[in-house]
């Protein structure tokens, strides 16, 4: 029945809860009716009085389950596991991004959107510090609405989705020079399209909340379907048609807007090797000024190495390719120590580590390229991902985060290079990777955000509320049941509960203890608590209450007289009063036990410490 309910009411939780309650009530009542019939045939007496009680119990139980189900947020186990992994392996927020971000005057309203991202720190602890679960987390879904055969048709560069570019190398990390923000309307051209060596590629992005706020695009964006704030390091003069803004995207640092679903048309360079080899014109001023500088921290041996690697290469493009292939000979690894603070990262990677991951490769390539006079910059974003042929999109996870290099070629703009050994070269056609089975079987989420933030804050109070509510309902039902009891049974039932409290309070009674012996032990145990002024106030009257309850329990059990049902009210009332006192005592005793455990524990720890110290001294 529940399955049917689920099928038809999947979307509306409220209906489901109501139907669940109704279903439970029905089950309870039908069950009772069936049992009642059996009793009738067997001739069991006294079943009429049970019916009423059953109805009440069924009603309260259903209401309780309903409220519980309604209050609980729906739980999926994966986000919880993720959260747990993150707790265990370290937080994402604990990134050790180096470098002074404050030197950059961003201006505008949206600067806090990517204020942190202006500095691409080394190393990327985002990837290293976190466990494999985090790396598998999907951060975005990309599809190409205009491309018919995504996997085979697109150039590899169309799968390099950038977010930021960096121009300033500090020796220990990357920063951007000051930028100016310009607002662009939807559809307004951001970059200029004045070259036939670029291809305009349309992409649709669906981002997860973890990368919200930044815009990704393969190559520099041409137009966006949202109003966007573009940060320019060099303002394009005369808008989009300026000659000093060559094709290839000019000098954009980043594009920001607050949407997680968007469509972008961007420019992907398609210049051939030969065309690039022919590029020998002098660089524009803004390129030469900005993208050739190196800090003093770069030692001479790095510059020498750059000369050595590029010696004999006739053209700028060949020099760049030589640096790229030289770096690709270094083995790739993610398991690295943090580089020393006072070392130049490129120098440290090239001569000491000789192994590393994309940040090291890309940084080193920029440094080497600039050392031989090639204008270069660092680009950050995501690459590749898994192609899902069923849905015709790319699933991009945190593990696909990447850093690569762009080198400026006069007349052709910024051309991407891939110095990281673990990746295919950009100009090679990437083969579409098959989806792993666990991803292929995932339900196809059509929602905008891929990863919903799990509402933990909702869960805790809901659970608490459910527990408290359940407890209250249980108490009320218990008292209600007791009021309806036969007085003799009531006196005994109360004593059963008293025994339970006795167990919790550790009065140490035995099966061979009579009511009075138990009472003595209980009184003795309570006396301890009644000694303090607060305890005396809380417990006032407990002796008389226990005496009364004991008296009636004894009478009920052993006397030949039957107890009058007028007693019920006062017995239940007495028990209610006594119960609140006993609860106070039980809480107190548990609390003090906890405290004493903690004390013992800390003492033990101290002692172990002392022993260890002693051992160390010896």
């Amino acid at each position: 029945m529940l399955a049917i309910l689920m099928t038809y009411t999947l979307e509306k939780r409220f209906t489901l809860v109501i139907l669940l309650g109704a279903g439970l009530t029905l089950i309870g009542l039908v069950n009772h009716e069936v049992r009642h019939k059996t009793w009738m045939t067997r001739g069991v007496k006294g079943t009429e009085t049970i019916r009423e009680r059953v109805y009440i119990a069924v009603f309260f139980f259903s209401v309780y389950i309903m409220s519980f189900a309604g209050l609980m947020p729906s739980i999926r186990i994966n986000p919880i596991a993720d959260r747990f992994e993150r707790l265990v392996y370290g937080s994402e927020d604990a990134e050790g991004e180096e470098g002074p971000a404050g030197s950059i005057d961003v201006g505008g309203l949206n600067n806090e959107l990517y204020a942190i991202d202006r500095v691409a720190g080394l190393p990327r602890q985002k990837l290293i510090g976190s466990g494999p679960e985090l790396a598998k987390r999907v951060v975005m879904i990309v599809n190409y609405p205009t491309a018919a055969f995504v996997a085979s048709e697109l150039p590899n560069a169309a799968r390099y989705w950038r977010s930021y570019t960096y121009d300033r190398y500090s020796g220990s990390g990357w920063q951007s020079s000051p930028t100016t923000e310009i607002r662009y309307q939807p559809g307004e051209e951001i970059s200029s399209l004045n070259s036939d060596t670029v291809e305009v590629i349309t992409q649709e992005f669906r981002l997860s909340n973890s990368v919200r706020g930044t815009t990704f695009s393969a190559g520099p964006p041409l137009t966006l379907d949202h109003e966007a704030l573009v940060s320019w390091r060099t303002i394009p003069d005369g808008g989009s048609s300026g000659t000093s803004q060559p094709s290839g995207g000019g000098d954009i640092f980043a594009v920001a807007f607050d949407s997680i679903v968007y469509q972008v048309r961007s420019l992907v360079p398609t210049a051939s090797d030969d065309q690039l080899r022919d590029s020998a014109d002098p660089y524009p001023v803004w390129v030469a000024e900005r993208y050739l500088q190196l800090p003093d921290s770069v030692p001479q041996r790095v510059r020498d190495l750059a000369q050595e690697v590029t010696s004999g290469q006739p053209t700028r493009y060949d020099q760049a390719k030589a640096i790229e292939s030289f770096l690709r000979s270094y083995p790739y690894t993610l398991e690295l120590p943090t580089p020393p603070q006072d070392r130049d990262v490129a120098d440290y990677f090239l001569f000491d580590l000789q192994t590393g991951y994309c940040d090291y490769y890309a940084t080193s390539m920029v440094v080497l390229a600039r050392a031989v006079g090639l204008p270069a910059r660092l680009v950050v974003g995501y690459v590749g991902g898994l192609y899902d042929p069923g849905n015709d999109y790319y699933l991009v996870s945190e593990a696909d985060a990447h850093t690569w290099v762009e080198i400026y070629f006069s007349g052709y703009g910024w051309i991407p290079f891939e110095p990281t050994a673990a990746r295919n070269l950009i100009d090679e056609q990437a083969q579409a990777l098959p989806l792993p089975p666990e991803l292929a079987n995932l339900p196809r989420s059509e929602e905008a955000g891929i990863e919903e933030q799990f509402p933990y804050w909702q869960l805790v109070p809901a659970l608490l509320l459910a527990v408290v509510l359940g407890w209250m309902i249980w108490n009320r039902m218990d008292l209600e049941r007791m009021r309806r009891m036969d007085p003799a049974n009531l006196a005994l039932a109360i004593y059963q509960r008293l025994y339970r409290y006795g167990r919790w309070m550790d009065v140490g009674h035995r099966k061979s203890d009579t009511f009075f012996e138990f009472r003595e032990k209980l009184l003795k145990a309570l006396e301890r608590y009644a000694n303090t002024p607060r305890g005396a106030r809380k417990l006032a009257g407990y002796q008389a209450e226990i005496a009364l309850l004991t008296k009636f329990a004894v009478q009920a059990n052993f006397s030949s007289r039957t107890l009058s049902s007028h007693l019920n009210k006062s017995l239940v009332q007495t028990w209610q009063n006594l119960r609140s006192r006993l609860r106070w005592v039980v809480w107190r005793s548990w609390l003090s036990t906890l405290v004493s455990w903690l004390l013992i524990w800390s003492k033990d720890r101290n002692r172990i410490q002392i022993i260890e110290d002693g051992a160390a001294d010896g």
Partner: protein
Amino acid sequence: MDEVKDLTTKIVKNIEKVIIGKRRAVQLVVVGLICEGHVLIEDVPGVGKTMLARSLARSLNCSFSRIQCTPDMLPSDITGVDIYDQTSNEFKFMPGPILSQIVLADEINRATPKTQSALLEAMQERQVTIGGQTHLLPEPFMVLATQNPIEYEGTFPLPEAQLDRFFVKVSIGYPTTLEEMSVIENQQLVHPIESIEPVTSTDKILAVQRRIREVYIAEPVKKYIVEITQETRAAESVYLGASPRGSLALARASQAWAAMYGRDYVIPDDVKMLAEATLGHRVILSSSARLQEIRTGDLIRDILRDIPVPGGDFKGE
């Protein structure tokens, strides 16, 4: 049951003027009295066994006699003899000390078995037969026998079958320091026994004796009593357990105890309170247990600690 409570409280209070600080022992003796039973007081000399018996007799306004048992004592020294009266030319019955209402048989284990059995037979039958003539003993009739547990030389230990005839066994024990001091103080000028006044009449005692039989014993409590008795038979350190007469005595004594506290029903507390006094002397320990110096009191206490008490099926440890 309030009249039972009032009466017994009065008696106990009265005796306590003489026997200081021994309420349990006094109460047990009163239990023996109102259950028409006999009491065996086992204790060392000088703790007030005789005083207890005498003050009881005075409180009840009953006749009292004392038999000092010795090995050369004959049954007729207890029961009395027919003596030929020359003036009337016929045998005349000279009643022995047994024909009193309260009889103190001091150091009963010093008498020969022959004399002992005469005494015990009189206790059981409540009559003596001399020269074909049956003499009914007065009512109420109660024997308080004492024996010294430490002396074995020249004694004839009571056979187990005879011990069974005593309703309860009481031991008085030494008083505490303060109690002993007040004993000295009390007896400085005149013995307090002289100042004891009767607090009741024999009629009232007889009425109470009938009354306590009406005290209600619930089924679970009856079962509890039987379980205790049966456990004395099953225990490992026991050679011979308590007889059904033991169960009967325990039940009756519990009734009396309940009535003494004004209750008309027996609760397990009563049973626990009286188990040792009523069953202790009916159990014969095995020789190995005796060698280990296990005492019947310990055995009964162990049994009481193990048997679950009726009163709700509570789940304790």
